[in-house]
């Protein structure tokens, strides 16, 4: 069984530029875990530290119970798939895959057997003799994966593995990755800036921003109960409304009043998803004016003005449904149970 990974108080800086600040994460054995964040959030650096490319200035990294903080990359038995695959152009597919096995001093027969098995697994058996340049992007990606998993690493690290694939292929590869991970039962850490990828594939996600972990949790929890403004807006779209929470559960913000919001009284910010605002022809809602309209297929996305607030509102689209015109006066309804109060 693949061990878990513990990251304890890890900080890291490139020269004077701080990249990671006191990061703590506990990744369970066999878990599919994602680091999600915008570029520059430190997620790739964190992955590289786990692989051994760099040593944290503070803190420790444990694989299972083994402290690997000072262990060089070649002694870690952590497999990493690089963003650009990093296939060696001067070696055939089979040679690329054999490389790690040769370092582990396996017998020739064993190496050949394993190469065949892993290429079968990723569906590239016929391509063993090809050079990487003769493969398509998706095939190169599989070779990179095969080269990494063939050494049976304790941990599998994936650095934006789907970013070089086109939209259709990435959905396919994504589900294949998930299947493979479950088949192998290997603890996997996945770095991405794409929330959809992370939501679709990961058991749990750690959201990073500016070198700090913002929130850790299962995808639905992060979406429904974001801990702060960053998480609320980075995962999906959210209307953030700054205001004041009064003792009776009434939220007041510049011309917008919502009742039935729980929480500690005082200044507060609430997040409401666009699909949780109703803009159907209701008569008893809050008055609003349509400022913008975008037809996106399954939904029509409006921007409506309420007092000083500009809210994003999604209305599901059905055949021949008439849309509201820009400038139209409408009424909207917000379900208070769907409002998340942020710190």
């Amino acid at each position: 069984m693949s061990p878990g990974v513990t990251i304890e108080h890890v900080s890291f800086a490139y020269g004077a530029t701080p990249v990671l600040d006191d990061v703590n994460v506990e990744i369970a054995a066999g878990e599919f875990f994602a680091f999600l964040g915008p570029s520059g959030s430190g997620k790739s650096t964190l992955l590289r530290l786990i692989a051994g490319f760099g040593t944290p200035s503070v803190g420790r990294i444990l694989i299972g119970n083994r402290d690997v903080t000072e262990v060089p990359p070649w002694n870690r038995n952590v497999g990493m798939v690089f963003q650009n695959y990093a296939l060696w152009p001067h070696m055939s597919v089979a040679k690329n895959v054999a490389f790690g096995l040769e370092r582990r001093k396996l017998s020739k027969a064993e190496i050949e057997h394993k190469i065949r098995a892993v290429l079968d697994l990723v569906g590239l058996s016929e391509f063993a003799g090809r050079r990487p340049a003769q493969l398509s992007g998706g095939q190169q990606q599989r070779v990179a994966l095969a080269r990494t998993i063939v050494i049976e690493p304790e941990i599998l690290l994936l650095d934006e593995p789907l970013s070089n694939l086109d939209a259709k292929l990435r959905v396919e590869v994504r589900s294949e990755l998930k299947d493979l991970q479950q088949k192998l039962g290997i603890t996997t850490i996945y770095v991405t800036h794409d929330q959809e990828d992370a939501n679709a594939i990961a058991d749990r996600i750690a959201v990073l921003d500016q070198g700090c972990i913002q929130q850790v949790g299962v995808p639905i929890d992060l979406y429904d109960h974001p801990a702060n403004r960053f998480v609320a807006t980075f995962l999906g779209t959210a209307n953030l409304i700054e205001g004041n929470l009064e003792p009776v559960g009434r939220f007041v913000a510049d011309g917008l009043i919502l009742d039935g919001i729980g929480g500690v009284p005082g200044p507060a910010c609430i997040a409401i998803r666009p699909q949780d605002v109703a803009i159907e022809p209701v008569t008893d809602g809050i008055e609003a004016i349509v400022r913008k309209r975008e037809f996106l297929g399954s939904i029509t996305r409006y921007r409506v003005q309420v007092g000083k607030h500009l809210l994003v509102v999604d209305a599901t689209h059905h055949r021949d449904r008439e849309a509201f015109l820009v400038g139209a006066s409408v009424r909207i309804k917000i379900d208070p149970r769907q409002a998340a109060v942020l710190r």
Partner: protein
Amino acid sequence: MAVLGDTPIAAPVRRVSLIARYGASPAQIIAVVAVAVFLLAFLVVPILRVILVAFTGADGYFSLVNFGDFFASPLLRESFRNSVYVAVMTVALASLIAVPLATLISRYRFRGAALIHTLGVIPLVMPPFVGAVAMQLIYGRNGAINLLLLDWLGIRVPFMEGLNGVIFVEALHYFPFILVNLSASLNNIDSAMEESAQNLGAHGFTLFSRIVFPLALPGYVAGAALVFVKVFDDLATPLLLNVSNMLAPQAYLKITSVGITDPMGYVISVIIITCSVGGLTLASLSLRGRDYATQQRGGGGLSQRQLGRLGTAVAVVFMVIALALVLSPHIGIFLLSIGTMWSYAVLPDDFTIGHYVTVWQEAGPLIGNTVLYCGLAGMIDVVVGTIVAYVLLRTRLPGRQFLEQVAMSAVAVPGLVLGIGLLRTYYDVTLPFTDQPLATFWVMLVIAYSVRRLPYALAAAKAALQQLHVSLEEAAESLGAGKFTTLGRIVVPLMVGGLFAGFVMSFATAAVELSATLLLVARSADAPLAYGIYIYMQSAAGRGPGAALGVIAVVVVAIATFMSYRLAEHERGLMSRERFL
């Protein structure tokens, strides 16, 4: 086919203009034809002439008898073996110096990296034959080092005996070709290539030999092939070291002593060309089937790391030794130029500025000739290089790739062979109103230099043009400028930085060219600096003044190179400022 409505009508016969068909205006086509004629007259015909003579028997028909004679002669067979041996050993010795240095600068972070970069340029500003004499005084049988060794350890090391001397001098002079090409290659490797190998368990020497070096191989091979070709071609170094049993000296001696009708000089030329072309072909064959184009960029070069304590110590010792070796010809030549007597002694007996006074009178015309010839040659190269690059990248003229290949092939043509070919082809052509053969007219030196250095300028022009987005030209054309105006007003001004670099490269390397010079200089009044130095260096008494001239040559080339760079930088600075204002 034009189809209007439902009724197909015959397309009118359209007269396709040159511009529509080839993307080139008539004026441009004339320029291309002129370039083609230039290359034909001064590169293709002379070389073919050499080959033709080599394969012609006494009866005037095709024959291999000359080659039979070549291989029947023990001296020539030995010369052939020696040339190959010296070229291979030079590549080996140069690699021993260059590979560790290149690895150090591209993979490790430490003070002194800039020093190594400088190391890579120092040797190139001094012709190898100038250093040869100084090296004899330092490393020769009775040179400084051997006298010290004899004193301390009672031994002598034959650094400079026979072929060893040639190998030693050439390796010290030409190792930068490998250093520069290999470090460029190393710096181009994506760091993920290395990291993925580490991730799979490789480190240290395995990592270097299995991943890093194979990926950098194209750079190494390119550098090594250049060294091989250069060594084969170098005439003056063996001559000054009194080694005549090599191919280049033999060819020179045949032509100058027996005369330009003796077929053996031509046979040797053909063999030298064959070896050059063979070396370059072997190099490109060794890389065939290896695809390096997939080296993804963006990850940056190899990650540089700190050297450990032991590593630093080893690196420092290695660098000090390398620096001492590389600088020794320069130090030697300087000492020689200010020393009164220097033989059987570690250092000269006394110092003087007398040698500089001696050469002062002569230095003027020699410098003037060098600047004139090399300046003209550099300009010809820039013009021809620009035209060829433009035709290649911006037009659809038929045969444009062929034109480029012919121009680039000058890389594989040894100066000696080109000199012999020009001599043979144009000796019978006399200048109007005089009896002087065209072959020994000073302009022929300019032409020989420009043909030989054309590949440098062409490569620079191609690089500059590739960076220039074609939309800049299209904008000018859409505003009404013709092809020629666009070229003159837009393309060339924007290429100026790259063209300057090409000019400097042509100028600086032509200034130290001697192989062709020795054959084509007829009167001492026409002689450039390199020739003057060679003449002085031949006699023991002339060494001091020769060394003084050598120092002057180094200074002239260095100043010219530096000034051109400053000028080019200034120009580029102006352009970028204007663009951002």
